[in-house]
């Protein structure tokens, strides 16, 4: 059962945990992100020596479990990240997760691309739309996007070419992608 559940996507696990009240699915989902959660908690543990591992992780996991039952989660990774961040900022407050507009637009475009996988007509429309959106980007952004996604260059390569740090490259790419997603969403709304 565990093996079967671990093969499911985040979306399916969330729906199982919510609709069927499947604790096992909930466990598999939390386990999937547990190592990342540990990694982002390390600075907090280091900076606050008073914080105990025995209290931090159970309470954080409990909060995540509660959020899983009540909140609408589009992207699990974003939800985990935001929940952890709000927990560190306000340990006593339960601030609900709500995805940003950029995240929603990006998710919407990702879903469109996923749906168009077997539909050639839809695929062609999407491709032309992306080309138009790319044309709308600044030269720097377009260059970065084309080099990274189409020429399969790494962060390090691009950083070396441009003289940025890899983090800066990632940041620029993220912004460019967000703009692309926004343009595509606007195009679809106009149409």
């Amino acid at each position, binding site marked *: *059962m565990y093996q079967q559940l671990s093969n499911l996507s985040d979306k399916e696990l969330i729906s199982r945990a919510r609709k069927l009240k499947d*604790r*096992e699915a*909930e*466990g598999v989902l*939390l*386990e*999937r*992100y*547990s*190592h*990342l*959660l*540990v*990694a*982002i*908690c*390390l*600075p907090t543990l*280091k900076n606050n020596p008073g914080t105990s*591992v025995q209290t931090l*992780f*159970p309470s954080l*996991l409990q909060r995540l479990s509660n959020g899983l039952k009540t909140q609408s989660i589009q992207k699990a*990774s*974003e939800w*985990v*990240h935001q929940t952890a961040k709000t927990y560190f900022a306000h340990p006593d407050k339960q601030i609900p997760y709500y995805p940003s507009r950029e995240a929603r637009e*990006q998710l919407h*475009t*990702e879903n*469109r*691309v*996923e749906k*168009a996988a077997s539909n050639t007509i839809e*695929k062609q429309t*999407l*491709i032309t739309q*992306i*080309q138009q959106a*790319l044309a709308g980007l600044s030269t720097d952004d377009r260059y970065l*996007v084309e080099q*990274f*996604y*189409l020429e*399969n260059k*790494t*962060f390090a390569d691009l950083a070396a070419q441009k003289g940025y740090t890899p*983090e800066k490259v*990632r940041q620029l*790419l*993220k912004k460019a*992608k967000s703009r*692309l*997603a926004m343009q595509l969403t606007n195009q679809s709304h106009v149409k």
Partner: protein
Amino acid sequence: MSNSISYNERLLKIFAGVRCLNKDQLPRYLEGRLTDIEKHLVEQHLVDCDLCFDALQVLHKDGQMEKYISLSTGIQQYIRASIRPVSQLQKMERYLRRVKKRESLLIYFWLVAFIVGGGSLLYLMQQYNRNKPVMARPAAVPVVPAAAIATTPPPADSQASPSKPVMLSSATGATTTPLATPPPAVKDTAKALVKKPAIDSAARKAAAAAAAKAADSLRLKKAAIKDSAAKPAIKKDTPVMAAAATVDKTDKTDKKDDNNNNSKEKEENGSNASKPAATKAAPSSSAIVDTDEYLYKAAMVYQQQGNLDEAISRYKRLTPNNGRVGEMARYQMGVCYRSKGQTGKAKRMFKEVVRMDGTMKQAAQQALDNL
């Protein structure tokens, strides 16, 4: 052309969803032990995912790999430990629920099967009973009247009757005035009584006792008649009913006579004390009638109790009496013989009754016809 298609296809890659880094990929990426494709996919994902990027940054800068590894295995174990018992419990609950459902379904099935089976059995029984009498009736019919006549007298009457007459006779003999009806079988004597009433008190008392006894006997008879009338279809003794009707009629006329008699008695008592010879004859004749009546009644009781031989022997003692009591006794003897299955004797008795040409003639004739 193929290049252009592949180029275009690659454009879709920008928005392809890639999963977060798993537990193995994270340290391998940090150590640079990933293939180019894998590395590119991870970086593609890192553009979107802040969680993975933050995690990588933390581990890259702080270098707390050992702590990270121990904590990540610890948290994994904690999650599994907190989930497992619950999931096992859930599985058990689910299994138990399924078993219960199956059991309840089985119970419902057997209940329905039992009801249907019972219903069909009842239906078949009804059908069988509806068809059964056609075959079974001839065998059943001769048994029933014999039992009805001989063995099943009405319980109240049969229990009360043997003790009643004695008590009543003693009570009425001591206190009551002769208001009760005289015996219906002794019409002639009653008439004689009307013509020649008793004068002295002793004679009057005797007459009163006789009247009371006669009334009792009549009551018994009526009970017997009622009993027989209760099962007219089985017994086929309708003549008795007719006889009872006649008895009733005579009874009523006698009552009237008796009343007249009493009034006349009183008048004569007051006015005159003559005609002693006539008064002597009346009590003696009434006493004979009374004994016969009494015997008849006792025999009736035996008959009702089912002791037919005793009843017949009692009735036989009454055969010298050629009056109404004798006639009734013969008729009842016939009935007894018939009940015993001695049809020859029964016929003879009924013929005698017919020959006597009394009130029971018609009933006897009918009984003869039915034999």
